[in-house]
């Protein structure tokens, strides 16, 4: 039963850290909490047999994306951002809307009956997920893989075009 308790632990921590992400006034603390969420999720992924994804989660999300966030926060002036008031009456609507959607979704998600082992593109019995990912990524998912490279190219162009400082 060990993995079950670990799952509770990691998921519980992930939710607590997620709440901390949205409730912190200082963006740096928010970013740190988000990094925590991502690491906890990586642990969950290991429990779910997705070791490769867990490694990628740490490398890409924590190592690249969140570092970029922290970098930009440091570049900007965070003093002024700290003055933000968290509780504004008109935002209550947003919270209520979010809670309502969450309730609906969670009822759907909690009663969902996933058909065991009936998915397409099966992971072969006994094989680990990494092998299966490698195999399918360069066969069935060849075209999406190529298009993803275009999406990343757009990201690159965007950073160059918008990020560069220009004289008027």
């Amino acid at each position: 039963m060990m993995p079950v308790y670990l799952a509770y632990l990691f998921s519980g921590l992930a939710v607590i850290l997620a709440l901390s992400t949205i409730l912190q006034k200082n963006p740096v603390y928010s970013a740190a909490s988000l990094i925590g969420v991502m690491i906890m999720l990586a642990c969950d992924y290991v429990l779910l047999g997705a070791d490769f994804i867990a490694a990628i989660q740490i490398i890409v999300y924590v190592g690249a994306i969140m570092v970029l966030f922290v970098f930009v926060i440091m570049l900007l002036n965070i003093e002024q951002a700290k003055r933000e008031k968290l509780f504004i009456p008109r935002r209550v609507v947003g919270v209520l809307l979010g809670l309502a959607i969450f309730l609906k979704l969670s009822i759907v998600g909690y009663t969902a009956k996933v058909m065991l082992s009936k998915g397409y593109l099966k992971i072969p019995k006994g094989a680990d997920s990494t092998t299966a990912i490698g195999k399918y990524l360069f066969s069935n998912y060849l075209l999406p893989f190529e298009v993803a490279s275009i999406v990343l190219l757009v990201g690159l162009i965007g950073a160059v075009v918008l990020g560069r400082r220009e004289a008027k």
Partner: protein
Amino acid sequence: MANIDLLTITPDIILIVFAFALLLAGAFSKVERQANFNMLAMLGFGLAFLVNLFLFGAKKYGYYNMFFFDEVAGLFRFVFYGIGILVALISEPYICGKIKHKGEYYALILISVAGMSFLATAYDLIMLVLGLEAMSLSIYILAGMFKHDEKSVEASMKYFLLGAFSTAILMLGIAFVYGALGTTNFGEVVTAYQKNLGGHKPELLIAGVVLVLAGVLFKIAAVPFHMWTPDVYEGAPSSVTAFMISGVKAASFVMLIRVFVLGLKVVVFDLVTTVMVISAVTMTLGNVCALVQKNVKRMLAYSSIAHAGYILVGFVALNKTSLAAIVFYLIAYALMNIGAFAVLVLFDDRGNYLESLSGSGFKYPFLGLMMTIFMFSMVGLPPTGGFMGKFYIFKGALEAGYVWLVIIAVLNSAVSAYFYLRVLVYMFFEDFKGAVAPSVNSTPTTVALVLTSIGVLYLGIFPQAFFELTQRCMTYLP
């Protein structure tokens, strides 16, 4: 089974290759020599268009069923490449001197169109997501290209935040669909539905479909998800707005058709009532808000919301006539919007306000005539493409028995006459105040104006042949 079919995606490869060429040329050439970059971009679109002409009519699956090229995809590719050519035509005089990254500007338009074209040929939800992202990420950048203009930066920021938000919602919807069916490939949906679910529709699947619909409606700018539209369309550079208003709209509707008519047709439960209400509210709200606008760009943004409502009527009716009418309407809509924006582009943003257009109609008769044609088409007056588009949409809806929806739409069109024709009233019946003058070097834009106006008139006067072509292409419904 594998079927690595390079030929069918050749048009997209051409676009990407030209995008790379433009990026390199932009990096290594002097600013003075970048004036003919739009020619390079147009050459790319033109080549892609020709190759697609050669491919058109075939039905091909490829890349392990990730990709399905059929008449609908071919037709929409023509639309996207055509829009690309027109946008490249109207861009040059407008962005000249305002944007330092011309190579990147045209490269992003090319990539964005390639993304749209991948959307049109998607046969798996993953391809849909990636095509959508290639398209929208490019447009977030394009919208913010005027880096010193507060409005442009704001438009980019708002579009980006809400666009990323909608992507997250779309992804959750796809996750639910996957969880319920075990696959997201359109070719396997039917068997998965019958074999795994035994023809039942679990809550999970319904929630997934609704979330995917929400993600798509966001891009269409239908009502609960329209808040970003006016600000983004007003703030973005006019040439980019022309691209968004025509290209993204067409791409989102092809997404709607691919997902809900081709892909998940068997599992889509009764969404008709929802879409009907959304459609009615969308057109009404768009028209009512457009009534009070003083800024022509913002007025056109609200009008694009209203037009999205009209086109959704075709999706509610969901028969062969109405699907063909959607394509017809989208083409007419793209032509008249790019045309109207070409006029604004020629005035170099000085004519964005109604007052500043005062009297310009008689002072510049050619532009006045053009604006008249486009505004008539937007109201839906004969003999223009806008009229025939509305006619076919309403005809399809009447065949399906949605009389009330058609009545609401017709009433809305009548209301919309007020704010479209007001532009003409300002242009022709007010004194010229010397506020606007066309920018000097405008040959490409004039060509674009002539092309779009001929297109609008052609669709209005001889619609039959073209409508029959679109009807032949719509093979999804009997």
